[in-house]
Each structure stands twice: as C-alpha cells, then as structure tokens.
C-alpha cells in the first residue's frame, strides 16, 4: 500500500479516520521488517538451566555450538505515553489543505492507535487558549475512542506557552512516561523549548514533532503584505520580497537551534511539514527510535 500524502489525508473527514488511515500505512510499512513492531524484544542469550522454558531454546545456537542456549526477551509492558498537542493560535495556520493543528491531531491519533494496539497506556494533554485539557493515560481498548474524540474537537486559539506546558506535565506525570509533543514551537519566551526538554532530567522519554507550514518554511510572498499575528495584536506592513532572505536566515537559525537543543538533551526530534506524507513522517520517527534502542 502506498503511503498517504497530505492531500489525500485531507480528503478524509475527521481525525479518527485520518488517524486510522495513517496508522494502517504505518503498520504496512512495519510489516516489511520482521524485527519491528514486536511487543517484546530480544535481549540476550543464557545457557540453559533446568526450569527454563523449552520454547525459548535457540536451536540455531545449539547447531552452531553444540550447547543449549535460551533466548531472553525484554517486555514493554510498562509504557505510559502522553501525547501533548499544542493548539495555540499559531497552530491554526494553513497555506495548503491541512493546518498545523490538523497534522498534529492526525499524528497524535495515529500514534494513539499504535500504542493502544500494543496495549500500552496512552494519554493526551492539549494546550489551548492558555489552558490544559488532559485525558489520563490508559491501556484499555475503549480508551482509544476517548482520545480520538478529544483530538477531533480541537480548536486553535490563544498564545503558545511551552514553559506552562512543561510545568503542567512535570506535575501531572509522577511516574516515568513517554512525552510526545506536537507543536510549531513558536514561543518567544526565553528557554521555552529547554523547559520542555528538561523533562528528560525527570526520566521521562521525550519526543518532539515540530510541525511547520511550507509557507512558513519558504516565505513565498512577493507583494507588500500586512502580516497579522495569529496569537496577539501584532501586525506589520512590509514588502515581503525585501525581507525574504533575512526571514529565511532567522528561521533557519531557529530550526538549527531547536535541533541542536534536542540533540543535546537526547530528545527525538522530527520536523514535519504540513504537506509531508504523515505516515512516512511517523515511520521515520519510529525507525529513529528503534535505531536508538538497539
């Protein structure tokens, strides 16, 4: 099955359908590799001792070494994942079929599918209008619909406040958990991203999806334009062509800094354009995480 492009995804109505479509695309990609998507993972060999399960005997090793070895596996039965979706005003920007918030919700929904399918606990935290709405992590199959329903009702608004989100997550996650952030990271508060990334120091596993619109990345405007802020009252009339080069320099520096901070804090970082193929973006993210575990 071919991976779904953004335009195709956009034709599907609702996050549930989109998330499922993306999830199926991901699963299709995963089946191509027998070593991916397993709920348990091979850890080491151990010489057979009485009492060990015979089904775990490694017959190939016996053929090679003429000794009995038993395979040992690491089970991921304990994973708690919180999907943090930034639903600030800036996430509502779209120059194509999908807004950044649409992409964030679809990616979060698809990931929810995968987690619940693996019987892992998945929760949701939405930052919108300066407030948080949470769905606590659970592994039950019926919990998936709760998550998808919450994602489907997201409306962009209010300022981006990543430090507040960081504080909120730090308080609400007493146990070790996986935190996946979907945001454009357009927060002008100093050290805003670093506050989120510092969740790593509390033993949480953090991953960041930075979602940007192609117009934000390429700045394809020519005419004199009145730019309006989507989160506050700021506005600026400017000849877009004249500042294009400078804008791209500023944005490039911002992206490079973001990527450097994530690398420094050992955080998985994935830049997603809203016109990207979302299942491919998700597969890339999962492959990256798989690679890190090995």
């Amino acid at each position, binding site marked *: 099955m071919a991976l779904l492009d953004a335009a195709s995804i956009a034709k599907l109505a609702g996050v549930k359908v989109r998330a499922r479509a993306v999830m199926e695309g991901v699963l299709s990609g995963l089946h191509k590799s027998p070593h991916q998507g397993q709920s348990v993972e091979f850890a080491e060999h151990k010489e057979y001792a009485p009492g060990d399960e015979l089904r775990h005997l490694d017959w190939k090793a016996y053929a090679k070494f003429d000794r009995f070895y038993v395979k040992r596996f690491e089970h991921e039965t304990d994973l708690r994942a919180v999907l943090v979706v930034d639903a600030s*005003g*800036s*996430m*509502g*920007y779209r120059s194509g079929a999908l807004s*950044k918030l649409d992409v964030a919700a679809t990616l979060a929904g698809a990931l929810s599918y995968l987690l619940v399918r693996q019987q892992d606990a998945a929760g949701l935290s939405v930052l919108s209008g300066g407030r948080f709405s949470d769905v606590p992590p659970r592994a039950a199959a019926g919990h998936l619909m709760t998550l998808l329903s919450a994602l489907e009702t997201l409306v962009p608004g209010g300022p981006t406040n990543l430090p507040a989100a960081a504080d909120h997550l730090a308080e609400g996650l007493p146990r070790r958990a996986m935190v996946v952030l979907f945001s*454009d990271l*357009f927060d*002008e508060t100093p050290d805003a991203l670093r506050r989120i990334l510092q969740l790593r120091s509390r033993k949480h596993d953090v991953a960041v999806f930075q979602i940007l*619109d192609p*117009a*934000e990345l390429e700045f394809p*405007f020519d*005419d*004199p*334009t*009145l*730019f*309006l*802020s*989507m989160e506050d009252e*700021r*506005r*600026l*009339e*400017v000849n877009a062509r*004249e*500042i*294009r*080069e*400078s*804008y791209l*320099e*500023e*944005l490039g520096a*911002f992206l490079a800094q973001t990527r450097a901070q994530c690398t420094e804090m050992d955080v998985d970082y994935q830049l997603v354009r809203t016109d990207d193929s979302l299942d491919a973006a998700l597969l890339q993210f999962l492959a990256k995480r798989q690679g890190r575990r090995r």
Partner: protein
Amino acid sequence: MSFGHPWLLLGAVGALLPLLVHLFDRRRPKPRPFAAIAFVLRSHRRTASRLRLKRLLLYTLRTLLLLAVPVALARPEFVRPGSGALRASGPAATALLVDRSLGMRFRDGDTLFERAREEARDALAGLLPEEPVTLVPCGPDVEVPAAPSFERARLREALDRLQPSFGGADLNRCLALAARALEDSPLPGKRVVVVSAFTAVSLQLDVPAPRVKVADKLVQPEVVLRDVARGRALPNHFLLEVKAEPAPHLGSRMVAVTFTARNVTPGEAQEVPAALELAGRPVAKAFLTLAPGSTTQKTLTARAEAGGALAGAVTLQADALGEDDRRDFVVQVPRDLRVLVVDGSPNSVRYRDEAFFYEAALSAPGSPARPTLRDTEAAWREKLSDYDVVALLNVPAPSPEAAARLKAFVEAGGGLWVSMGDQVEADSWNQRLAALLPRPLRLVKSAGATGETALRPARLGDVAWDHPLFLPFTDKAREGLLAARFSRYMLVEAGQQAGDSAQVLAAFDDGAPALLLARRGKGRVLLFTSTVDRDWSDFAIRTSFLPLVQRSAAYLAGGLDERERLEGHVGQTLVLRPETAGAVAEVRAPSGARVPLRPDADGGLRVGPFLEPGIYRPLDTAEAPALPPFAVVLDAAQSDLTRLKPEALAAYFGEEAVKGPAGASEAKAPLWTWLLVAAAVVFFLEGTLLRTP
C-alpha cells in the same frame, strides 16, 4: 551652456514621477495572518535601515534617469570661452600663430606655452578637412612661414617640437607674416588663429591690423584669439638690472653688486629673498619688499676668492616666471699687482724720499697693488719677471745690461712707469732706453716754484679724459687734477717724426707733454715728465694723485682693459673687438651649444644671436678660454606681463572678427551624448540595486 531644443526641457518635470508615485500610489497591502510573525518582525528590524537607504537611492536614481533623458533630448552644449575656431562662411586658409615669447614660460599649474600647444592642437583639430593651414611660431627669431598646406601630421610634429624662447615676440610682425603666407592660398577665406597671452609688450595696438591681399584688394582676415591666460592677470616680479663692480674701497677683491628688482604684481611682495652667487656659490643674501608697480634697488657686497673675470648671478625667489628672477653677470675683480718701485733718490726723512708718496698711494687700503721698494742698486738685482710693473722714480739711466733686461721685461708684457727728477740725465737715458721711452728726453724746464711770482707754475691743460686712466676723473675730481701745479718738468722731443707711436695722455698748459704712453711689444710704458715727490710739483699731495697712480699701475698691468664691460641680451648679437677676437674659435652657450660667429664689417667678430641667458665662454681652438666669459641677460621689458584689455583687442582686430568678451571665440562642446551615457549607467545601477536583496 546652451540647448538645441530648449522646449524639450519641459520633460524634466517627469523627474517628479518617482516622488509622486511614492506619495500618492499607496496600494493597500494584502492582510495575511501569519504564524511566524516573530521572524518577520525580527527580519524587518534587521533590514529596515538598509532598505530605507536602498529605497532612497532608488528614488534618486530614478529621478536622475527621468531628468537625464529630457535634458539630453534638449541637446545641451557647453560653451567654452576662448576656444574653438570661428567659422567663416565656407572653408578658410588658416595661419596658426603660436606665441613663443618669454612670458609664455609663466607657470600656472602648467606653463602657458604648454597650454598654447594644446590650444593650437585643438584649433587644428577643429578645422575642416578642406582648410589648409600653416604654422607661424612667433619668437625672437621669426621666419617667413610656409604656404598653407594640408600636411596636418607634419604640422602636429612641428607643434610638438616647438619650445618657448627666452626672448620677446613681435606679434605684429608675426601677424603680417601670417597674412602674407595666407595670400599664397587660392581659397577666398582667410583666417589667423592667434594663441598667446596677449601681453602689452608683445602686441602694439598703434600699428595697423593685418590685411590680406585677395583679388587685388586688401581685406581683413578672420582673426581668432585664443587666450592661454584665460583672462587672468599674470603677476610677476623680476630683476630689471644687475650692475657688478669691483669695490676696492671696501677691501681687496671686494665686489659690489647693485641690482634692481621690479614688481608688476597688483599686490605687494614682502620679504622676497634675494641671493648673490659668485662662482656658483651663494655669498650674500637679502630680503626685498616690492611694492606693486615699483622698483627696488639693493647692493650686496662680497669678497671674491681670486682676481680676474668672475661669473656670478643675482637670484630672487622664483615666482610663476622664474626665468627672469635670475640675472647673470661677469665682474672683473682686480688682480693683485706686484709693483717694483725703484727709488732713485732715497732719503732718511720719509716725506722727502722720492718714493714716499708713490708707495703710499699704491699701498692705500683697497689698492690692488703690492709695492716692493728698492734703491737703484738693489733693484737691478731683482728678477723682473716676478713683477707686473716696474716704476723708475727719478732713477739714473740704468746700465746697458739692466736696460736690456728692462726692455725684455716690457716687451714680454710688463708695465713700466718712468717719472723724472734730478737724477735723470736726458742724454744717458736717451742712449740706454731709447727703445722704451715714448719719446726721447730733451731738457728740464722750470716753470716757477710754488709761491714765486716771476714764473707761473704750469698746470695740466689738455687731458685725454676718455682714456681709461682718466675715466674716474669727473667733476670735482677733474678739477682736483687740473689744480696741480708743476714748477719743473722734462721736455721731450716733438712727436712729428715718422714711426712715433707715443700717445700724449696729458699735457701742460704750455703744450709740453706731461704724461705719455707708448706700447713696446706686449707691454706699456708711461712717462711722467715731472716728479712724484714734491721737488718739481705739488701733484703728490693732491687728491688726484692717489687714484691716478693706482690706475696707472693697473693700466700698465692691463687691468683696466679687462674691466671693459661685455654683456649681451637674449635675441641680440655682440661684437668682439678686432684686437681681442683673433684668438676666438668658438663661443659656448650655457647649455653647451655653439653660438653662431661671423666676421663683422670693422674686422671684429659678431657673436649671436643669443638664444638663452647665462654665462657664455669664448674658447680658442684648443677649447681653452680665449677671452674672459661674458653674461647674456634677458630683455627686462619682456618680463612685464601686463595684459592687453579685451576691449582694446576687440577694437584693434574688430568686433566682427573677434568673438567673446575676452577677445576669444566660443566653442560648443556637446553634452547630450555624455548625458545619455550617464542615463544608461544610472539605469544599470538602478537595475543592480533593485536586484540587491
């Protein structure tokens, strides 16, 4: 500046378009909600000032572009006064007259002559191809110009070779020659282009303006004046005259140099440094203050290191015309004269000694003579060749051997002074020294002692005042000489005999010779028929005695001959006298060039014309000095650079012939092509700037 189509300048209003567009064409920008506005704001802050400057430059360039096009289309032309040839109706044969006078060396950045050369080239380039042209270099040595031709390349080469002279230029004569050369062209149009600074000394406005004969009619040629001074005054100060003379009264070998400086500058020249050079070394300095239009005289003195002809120069601090701020001279510094004084009647009482007054006169301060006093016996033991002059004062006739030595001494160039007294016996003198004496001695005549009434003492009556010996005796000095009274004197034989070469330089009032001169071989003999002490006259105590004794010693040694002043002027010639010119094989100019020589009608040698100022050296065939050097100086009149007024020039050449207030024609240089080029450059710059982020 003038415009071919001035009405097209209205298009320049279009230059306001960028401003009007900026002010009124405010299109409403499209509102666009944008998430990454923070980066837009940051970019705007970074680029705002640069963009403002860029926008301003763009407005300026666009305005200039819109201004340049209509102005260029209006065909502007720059009018250059003082240049461009006046166009006649139809082609005209042209004479290009270039002033080469001294004044053209005036430096105003470059020299006026360099400008003149450029102007001449420009005039040449402005001629029509069918116009023949001839070059008339106008200096002190003007030649008849060739007929107008089309050999422009040859003319340009001739222009390149042309150099300014050190002499004057007679523009009137050059104009007449140019007009005559134009008559050789069959073209009816005649034109004279005059490139000059138009100083009053170069062009006389009281002689008729040039005329050209065309079909048996005298017509005025078209005259184009190119003023290389661009209408400006030419301030100048210069040395008008330098007079260098020996100053024996100031000491041995002292020289006094009196120079006169003139200032033709409108303003006062203060503390102008002046310097005196002798033999190439600065020896004295002074400062002059030169009032406008005035002359100032100053005398500097210095001691020469040696006697003889000495070259020197006076220099003023150089101004724009530095050539006339130096004036060379040659001064004859008296040599030390060695005089052997033979005392024929010594006396222990000093003032009664025969040689007392004579020796005192020779030893006076400032005298070049160095007397050596000997009595009769000792004198003949002296080596006579060690002396320049031998003075026999009341000496008995010498022995034949001494007489022979004396004769050899005189014929070899020595000088002999003979004065009378009681010791002189006429017969023995005539016998021993007949070959030397100007005339044979006869007998002593008594005219009456001082104070006696029976006989009246004699006085000098007929004196050759124009002889070098008596040149200083003027006015009261002359009276002093004539007042001397002589009670006794030696008569000499009359001079009617054939072969008598004696010259009576002074005679007593009774006609008897008092001072006779004779040339014997290369030497001279002076016979004074009275005494040089007070025995026969009171001449020895007269004021005229000292200068006469000193000058006679100098004359006998040839010193007075050398003092004759020889000085030439640039552009002129000089005649060397027959008696001195014989040994001269060539004369070298300061630059080393050989000066033309040709025999003169009276047997002398005509040297020149001199082309440059400085020291000239007559040389013999072995290239050794044949004569003392002489100086050639500038004609001071050429240094007065007062310019003719444009109105005077216009009145002289005619208003029809001369265009422009400065007496010069106008040339129009098209500017529109340059404007179009500038517009293209501006257009390119605008495009480049527009593409610059």
